[in-house]
């Protein structure tokens, strides 16, 4: 269990943009996960996605770590940004791109492409 938590923590801390979601970017299993993904894509974010569905423990450990009860959850450089509504709203005002630039540098769009990483 602690191993799982460490892996989740590792993704949060080491990935520029981490998206914990239901399903994968190729096969999204939830409307809110889809909304968060689309907002991040529109901002050009280098998304690292984690599918929380394979094991209920992933979600439990994630929420214990983040203090956030719902899925999806978006982190930039280890900082919790929020769920779908927040990410969408930040994207609409341009604040999401500002945040990405401030945290990852102005060339964040060329960082690298979308990827999916497993935990557990």
């Amino acid at each position, binding site marked *: 269990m602690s191993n799982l938590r460490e892996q989740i923590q590792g993704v949060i801390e080491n990935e520029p943009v981490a998206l914990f979601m239901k399903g994968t970017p190729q096969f999204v299993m*939830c*409307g*809110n996960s889809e909304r968060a993904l689309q907002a991040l894509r529109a901002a050009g974010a280098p998304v690292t996605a984690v599918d929380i569905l394979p094991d209920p423990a992933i979600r439990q450990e994630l929420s214990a770590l983040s*203090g*956030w*009860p*719902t899925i999806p959850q978006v982190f930039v450089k280890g900082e*919790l*940004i*929020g*769920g*779908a*509504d*927040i990410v969408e*709203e*930040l994207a609409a005002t341009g604040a999401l791109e500002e945040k990405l630039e401030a945290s990852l540098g102005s060339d964040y769009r060329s960082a690298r492409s979308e990827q999916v990483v497993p935990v557990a």
Partner: protein
Amino acid sequence: MTEPLQTLLERAFPDAAELRIEDRTGGGDHFQVTVHSPRFNGLPLLEQHRLVNDALAEPLQNGTIHELRITTRGTE
């Protein structure tokens, strides 16, 4: 179906200028919550949503709420 949630939110935000809950699908588990409250004034969005999540912690935890959409505004 929205009444228990309405009660929880009214308790958490007694001074809300606006407080609405919509059952998005009619199935009683996908909700849109809208709260305009002076408690949100000056708070980042993340903290605004955290207050709503806290108010709805129990139904979020026990699965009553399967999907939640939140819209918050301060009153300033």
